[in-house]
């Protein structure tokens, strides 16, 4: 069951990563990157690295995305500009190569590991559920995440709204 979820997560990581490389809007890129980080956190958790998963979720999916969004909102490049046909063709032309390269890399990884994943248990976390780790052990970070989301929402609302008016 875990291996199936793992495969699905990995597949979506690849899709989100490609989307991140393909989007022209920097904000969409940042969101795609956050999705990659969130899925990677799931993979890390399924592989037994609970702490790493939480840190990945907190730092990459949460904090870094908000910092990216803030930085994007402070620049004018976030505004959409019409793309000419040649630019669009050049960008899309790279997609099949990316997909082929990704597929080959996955095949090499699967061939080398046989895809047998043994979760590594951390002694300090034995017997604790995800809920225990997230809710009871990292309560300060959970509160921090809520405030980070609030901060990001205000940053985007205040700076983007003004940017649109300008």
């Amino acid at each position: 069951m875990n291996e199936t979820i793992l495969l699905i997560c990995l597949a979506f990581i690849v899709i989100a990563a490609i989307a991140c490389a393909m989007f022209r809007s920097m904000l969409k890129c940042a969101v795609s990157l956050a999705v990659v980080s969130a899925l990677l956190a799931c993979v890390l958790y399924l592989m037994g690295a609970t702490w790493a998963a939480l840190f990945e979720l907190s730092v990459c999916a949460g904090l870094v995305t908000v910092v990216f969004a803030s930085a994007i909102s402070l620049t004018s490049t976030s505004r959409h500009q019409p793309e000419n046909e040649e630019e669009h063709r050049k960008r899309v032309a790279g997609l099949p190569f990316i997909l082929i390269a990704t597929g080959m890399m996955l095949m090499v990884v699967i061939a080398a590991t046989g895809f047998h994943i043994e979760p590594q248990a951390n002694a300090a976390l034995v017997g604790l559920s995800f809920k225990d780790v997230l809710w009871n052990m990292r309560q300060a970070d959970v509160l921090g995440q809520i405030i980070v989301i609030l901060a990001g929402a205000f940053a985007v609302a205040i700076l983007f709204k003004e940017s649109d008016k300008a």
Partner: protein
Amino acid sequence: MSASFTSLIYTYIGFPLLAIVVLNLIGKKHMEKFCAPIGCAVGVVQAVTSVITMLLLLQYNKAAVNFSQFWDMSVSTEAAYFSVDAISAIVLFCIGMVTAASFLTAAGMREEKMFNYTNVMLILVLGMSGIALVTDLFSLYVFLEITGIASFVLIALHRDIIGLEGSFKYLVMSAVASAFILAGLSFIYMETGSLRYDAVAEMLAGNTAAEPMLIWLAFLFLIAGFSIKSGIVPFHGWLPDAYQSAPAPVSVVLGGIVTKMAGVYAIIRIMSDFLLGTYSVINLAFMLLGLLSIVMGALAAIAQGDFKRILAYSSISQIGYIVLGASTGSMIGLIGAVLHFFNHATFKTTLFVNSAAVERQTGTTEIERLGGLQKQMPVTGVSSVLAFLSTAGIPPLAGFWSKLLIIIAAWQAGGPLIAGIALVASILTAAYFLRLQRKVFFGPVEEHLSTVKEARGGIAVSAVALSAVTVVVGLLFPVLLQILQAQGLL
């Protein structure tokens, strides 16, 4: 006892969060005129709560109180939780005091974007309170980022070119600092398997690190990261631009508390929780950085021509004193550092409020275009004199006592040369403030300023209240020193 503590302690996080929810549920249209009173109330409640917390800690003779109302702390020994001790209570008081002063200044300046300013300021208060309350290095990092994000937005609030430039510089430098801090934390985690303050302190005290090189590397990264966030020389490039470009009420909070919470507080925590009673290369590194900041900050302040830029470079110099005190590794140095943190929050907030008053009434902060404002603006002039005398360490004002403790500790730890440099730099402080005072307030009134009047309302109230704190704390300082001596801390 515990119930009274937890209900008090939850005020720090709960009250600002409640204010944000209420403001946004009712909406900008109806709440805009209540923003300043609500923000001011949040600051005052926080300051009062921290005083009560301190009194309760003294009454029950406890060093710290841990709390976690919504969660089960006993689930694991690795669980992170909040805690408040004497140092946290003092910095929480500073946060409350500066927040109230900033909202009063915003009301006095008739801030155009009051609703947005209030929301982001309340997030900033939450971030800074979190920094003071956490007991885990990773949670500290999370709240540092919250403080950083709120600061970027506040600096760029008006979306003018100068604000965006200052905000962008702060954003870039802050991102670099965060990368250093995260790298340092990951090395510590590799050695200890935990980022809790007590676990790291235990590992350092027992010298049980399997790879001591990793710990040195970790502290190297942490020193760099926290020094950038503190604006210590040579990592100070972003600070004057950020202070100068921010709207006046934001400068008050940036100069008064944000930089200190984002960097200096973490340095104090490292020194008090991990390295107290030791004198290692880490102490020496912080001591040299502190000294460099004291001297370079003061020298650069003399050459500035803008009120806010002089205050920014003065902040770099005064932050150097706090770092110097904390780096001595002695209790007297630590007490001096924490008290100078408090004093700096008071007198620097007063001076930024004064610069806001001058900006509002004259339309400029360039000192060459100002002169003779003492007669027109007596409250601003007198509060400015009191704040600068305290900054320069003139007795009996509060700044004298904290600098005295820091210089004694520096003498004991590093010898007369380091103490002497710190002492001489105080004369430089007096030099740049005398120049500022003479150019802005003394001498004949400039013709184009003859109709200028004193700033009324919130600006005057906060200048008077903060000056009163500087004078009263200075006069009561001998009593505080006696209490510390009775506790065996001096």
